[in-house]
């Protein structure tokens, strides 16, 4: 369980030391491929094979018959689609990009630390399809993965990319030349397109030689927490295994942990509902101004590779697909379930492979002290807290990069000086910049039109939360246990489990976990929490009774979970105000405007993160999964309706937690807390 940073190696180190980076990028390359083929398949070959495939030929024929389309036209249409999708590979572009990246990375990153496990993974390559599945927190993920492969002499993967990149002038082509292939968004229902795309994936897996890479979360997580995985691409990949077109597939979950995320500011805006700017090349060039800034360390770690063969071996009978041609096969229910189970597993492993950076710990400390309403400002107090938090997080299984305390904290604060500032008298404060809202067109906003004041006040907190959130994978469950135990004093182990499972389910989209309802994991967790002396347990009539022992830890956990509880409570409240169906946008607007009022009143401590739209939609999705409400699409609008009695029940369950928590506090600190640049 103990992971340490010893296994990580900074790949920039050699780049810094070597005489010429140019020599390095122009070295002889003989990269390791995923699946050695006697004749190396070319990108063009793949496209031709897709077009020639029985599946596509039949689709074309069927289309001709049913819609009277001409075969020639359809063939051309497929070719156009394939040209839109298909990756390319131009080694000169890769080399030049390698040089450019080396120069940029040397400037902006302290280090790119890669776990040595990569050598073992490289050893496993060569005779089967292999899929790299990195976590997705930044556009940099793409580039880093390819850079990593280039460094370790691994063939640069074929990477699934969104169409937004495709549209970028010049960039689309560069990405394509370095192995990206493009995938339209799933709500597109052009069946010719999807048949072609599926066949393309089938081709890459069954006849390709490159590793395949895609982001199982589907999109960048704006919040810093893992997202519920998407199953589409994974199913397409797994179909080749289920139908025995390939003997095995190796899935490699990868975590990329950032000290500082390039898009931190954009994400903060997006979480509040201000749409992200469309990807454009000029925007990209503008973002090159990042070169002037520092982004600290990056940690890349690999989960134990999952072999489809051993993972599914015992319960998926592939011979089920022996009758009927392979390309006509449909998934069985079992396979669908297993696919999503695997997807959840992969995300879970990604989370387990995270490295918690010093700034994550600082963010926790700051957030805790803000929520506690403490006037804790001096850096020394925070250093103490960071050490204390570091111990907690580590005992909950996290790997942190806090080694040389003073130095690490100093570096972290320097990297994040745009967000956290150390004043001349060694006080720590969030940096507040006046927010100029240039996109004031409410139609473009996803939620409520927040006032300039609210935005200016909230953005730093949201940004800070983006660094709290990666740690929530380790903290969410302890947080929930703490508040439940304190709420129901002397709760016995089984009642606690019932309550806990309810909250886990409620937060299943917020804190992605595949242990919901797992009693063994629950027992482990309790043991852990008793060990860190958060809880104490007594035996009463053969039954384990729990109560809170260490209130410092309890308060810490409570402070972290409250913003989430509050948002969920508010969603219930808003749903209940409407007797009938309610538009999603209306929910977002109402919840946000309520929180805006609460925040500007400064009556009690309300974390601005409660404003975030991500949690609101997570809440709705959880409710849907729990069968409480359901989603409908009525003329372009997403509308929610459902069983209001059940919503009420949830609200009643949440209420006590907030009643005891959100009592009025001294609010003066919140102002001190912020170092206004106004």
């Amino acid at each position: 369980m103990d992971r340490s940073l010893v296994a990580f190696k900074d790949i920039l180190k050699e780049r810094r030391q070597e005489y010429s980076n140019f020599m390095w990028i122009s070295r002889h390359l003989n990269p390791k491929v995923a699946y050695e083929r006697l004749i190396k398949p070319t990108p063009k070959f793949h496209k031709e094979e897709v077009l020639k495939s029985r599946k596509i030929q039949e689709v074309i024929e069927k289309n001709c018959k049913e819609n009277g389309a001409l075969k020639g036209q359809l063939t051309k249409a497929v070719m156009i689609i394939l040209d839109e999708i298909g990756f390319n590979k131009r080694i000169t572009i890769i080399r030049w990009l390698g040089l450019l990246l080396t120069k940029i990375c040397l400037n902006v990153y302290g280090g790119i630390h890669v776990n040595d496990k990569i050598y073992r993974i490289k050893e496993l390559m060569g005779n089967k399809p292999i899929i790299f599945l990195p976590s997705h927190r930044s556009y940099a993920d793409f580039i880093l993965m390819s850079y990593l492969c280039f460094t370790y002499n691994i063939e640069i993967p074929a990477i699934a990319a969104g169409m937004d990149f495709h549209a970028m002038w010049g960039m689309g082509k560069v990405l394509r030349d370095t192995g990206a292939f493009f995938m339209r968004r799933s709500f597109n229902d052009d069946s010719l397109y999807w048949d072609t795309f599926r066949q393309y994936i089938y081709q890459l897996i069954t006849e390709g030689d490159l590793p395949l890479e895609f982001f199982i979360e589907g999109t960048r997580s704006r919040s810093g927490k893992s997202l519920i995985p998407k199953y589409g691409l994974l199913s397409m990949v797994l179909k080749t295994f289920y139908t025995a077109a390939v003997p095995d597939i190796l899935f490699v979950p990868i975590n990329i942990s950032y000290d500082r995320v390039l898009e931190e500011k954009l994400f903060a805006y997006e979480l509040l509902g201000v749409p992200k700017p469309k990807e454009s090349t000029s925007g990209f060039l503008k973002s090159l101004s990042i070169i002037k800034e520092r982004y600290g360390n990056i940690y890349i770690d690999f989960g134990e590779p999952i072999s489809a063969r051993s993972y599914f071996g015992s319960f998926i009978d592939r011979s089920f697909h022996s009758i009927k041609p392979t390309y006509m096969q449909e998934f069985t229910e079992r396979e669908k379930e297993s696919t999503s189970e695997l997807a959840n597993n992969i995300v879970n492993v990604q989370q387990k492979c995270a490295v918690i950076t010093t700034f994550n710990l600082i963010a926790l400390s700051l957030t805790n002290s803000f929520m506690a309403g403490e006037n804790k400002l001096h850096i020394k107090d925070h250093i103490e807290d960071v050490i204390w938090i570091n111990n907690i997080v580590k005992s909950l299984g996290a790997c942190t990069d806090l080694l040389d305390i003073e130095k690490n904290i100093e570096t972290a604060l320097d990297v994040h000086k745009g967000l956290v500032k150390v004043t001349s008298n060694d006080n720590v404060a969030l940096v507040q910049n006046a927010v100029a809202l240039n996109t004031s067109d409410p139609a473009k906003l996803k939620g409520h039109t927040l006032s300039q004041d609210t935005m200016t006040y909230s953005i730093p907190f949201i940004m800070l939360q983006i660094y709290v959130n990666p740690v929530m994978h380790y903290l969410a469950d302890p947080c929930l246990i703490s508040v439940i135990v304190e709420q129901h004093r002397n709760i016995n182990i089984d009642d606690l489990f019932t309550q806990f499972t309810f909250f886990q389910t409620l937060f299943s989209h917020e804190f992605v976990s595949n242990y919901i309802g797992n009693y063994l994991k629950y027992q482990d967790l309790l043991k852990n929490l008793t060990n860190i002396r958060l809880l104490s347990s007594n035996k009463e009539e053969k039954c384990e009774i729990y109560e809170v022992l260490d209130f410092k830890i309890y308060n810490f956990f409570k402070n972290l979970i409250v913003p989430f509880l509050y948002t969920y409570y508010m969603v219930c409240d808003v749903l209940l105000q409407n007797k009938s169906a309610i538009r999603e946008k209306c929910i977002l607007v109402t919840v946000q405007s309520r929180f805006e009022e609460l925040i500007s009143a400064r009556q009690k401590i309300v974390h601005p993160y409660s404003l975030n739209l991500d949690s609101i939609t997570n809440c709705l999705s959880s409710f849907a999964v729990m069968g409480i409400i359901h989603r409908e699409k009525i003329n372009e609008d997403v509308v929610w309706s459902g069983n209001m009695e059940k919503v009420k029940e949830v609200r009643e369950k949440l209420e006590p937690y907030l009643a005891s928590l959100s009592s009025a506090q001294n609010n003066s600190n919140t102002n001190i807390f912020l170092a206004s640049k106004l």
Partner: protein
Amino acid sequence: MRSNLKSNVCSNKTNSPVPVKNDKNQDAIIVNSAIPKNREEILKWNGWGYKDSQFTVKDGIIHFTGSRYPIGELSLPYFTQWVKDVFDADLTKFHKPQDMPQEETYPPPKITEENYTLLSNLDIAFSTKGVDRLFRAHGHTLHDIYTLRESFFERIPDIILWPKCHNDVVKIVNVANECGMVIIPFGGGTSVTGSVLCSKTEARTIISLDTSQMNRILWVDRDNLVVCCESGIIGQDLEREIKKLGYTVGHEPDSYEFSSLGGWVATRASGMKKNTYGNIEDLLVHVRMVTTKGVLEKNCQVPRMSCGPDFNQVILGSEGCLGVVTEVILKIRPLPKTKRYGSVIFPDFESGLKCMREVAKQRCQPASIRLMDNEQFKFGQSLRPTPGYFGLILDGLKKLYITKIKGFNVNSMCVMTLLFEGDTKEVEAQEKKIYEIAGQVGGIPAGQINGERGYMLTFVIAYIRDLGLEYYILSESFETSVPWDRAISLCRNVKYVIGEECRKRNIRHFMICSRITQTYDAGCVIYFYFAYNYRNTNNPVEVYEYIEDKARDEIIASGGSLSHHHGIGKIRMKWYPATVSEVGVNLFKAAKEELDPNNVFASGNIVKSKL
């Protein structure tokens, strides 16, 4: 003439339900078999084939002895090198097998005085000698041969009976049924499924019913082009005798030098030249099977009939569980005027398979068409006394042409071997067509000699295993059938699985190769050869069996069959229910219950009998 034979008297004192024909067969051809009744006179006791033919190592070079096969009396330096390269074989470390057991060391036959008297009074040749029992206690699985060389079988038959005709079989079956004895029919002894092995726990007397002395060709019907044979006739005898009359049966499984007609029927055998002559079920016009309830047969010699389910299909593939096949009427063909070999090389296996598929689509298969993969191609090329793996094909200019001008990769190219039989004109037309199809996918004709070598190797390849066992190399083959579209993925998957299993067990020197040996309209047959150096492995046979099990799992997962022609026997029973459905299993059990309620035919093949 035959119909009035039916109403004959019963041979037994008991009221047997089995009517017995008289065996006056004036037209019968008495066949002097190549294999004597005392098999040990000419066959190896612990390996494949003739005693005088084997691979040996002389002065560090492998030779093949004897003059029965074209590579006989030759030294094989390139094969020697190949064995060293691929398996890291140490030809100085000879692993001596145990000697043949002394007569007194055999376990005494389990037979009561009473039963012994009964059987010895049947007027049928019999023996309880250890060596006779041992010879008929096994087939030719790796497990069987390894046991012979290293240890001993837990159970062997107690008595051997050599019936000389159908009626003798009827007598034996009746006695066994009445007196609680077990019969295991034994033909050529070439089973590769453990089908003639005795059940370890069988407490009853086990009779090995050796059909070898029941091998007459009873009559030849030239108008209808059929021949009636007794089931003990072995392939080479049948072909030799029928050839004298200007005909051929054309059924040539790789074992046909030794395997018997009855065995072919009981396992649903398939021959190399099935494209021209058909598989055993296509060749079979009529069959008689003696069961404990009587003889199962049809009343007419017709090419086909619509009279309910075809019970020939119950007999075909029954693997000795339901009764004894005694007489078979087979189709014959006039001898072909021309017989010609051919070969084509392809840049890779995939294009070779494309060619095979197209040939099947156009239904222009010659008598035999096979495709060897690269590993097997190299192996085949090494088995000759001239230099280089690719010597014959790739000598001099030709090599330059193929590798440089045509750009073939020596590590991916593979060869298709062809055998044409028929009228000269027909053959020529066939050749032309095949080479044309091959050309379309990049194949280059590579001459007759290469083709012929390929087929010659078929018979020699079986001898290699014995050599391997003497130098810590274990080898075995297994087969399957598969739809065309899954052939490539099946080959890849199986090779992958074997590779991974070997790696897991730290087996570094191994070979897995495949070849397509038959084509059909809807699919093809794939043969795998797997061999490994077991110097560092305990329980090499167990490990082999485990790996083959994994490979079979993968074959089935990949859409392949449990077996195309080897059968189920004992080694593939566990997959049988899933193969034929639970209903199928019960149907088979019901047939077994009806035909053999006392489980006389307790070989325990296909499904476990309840007794």
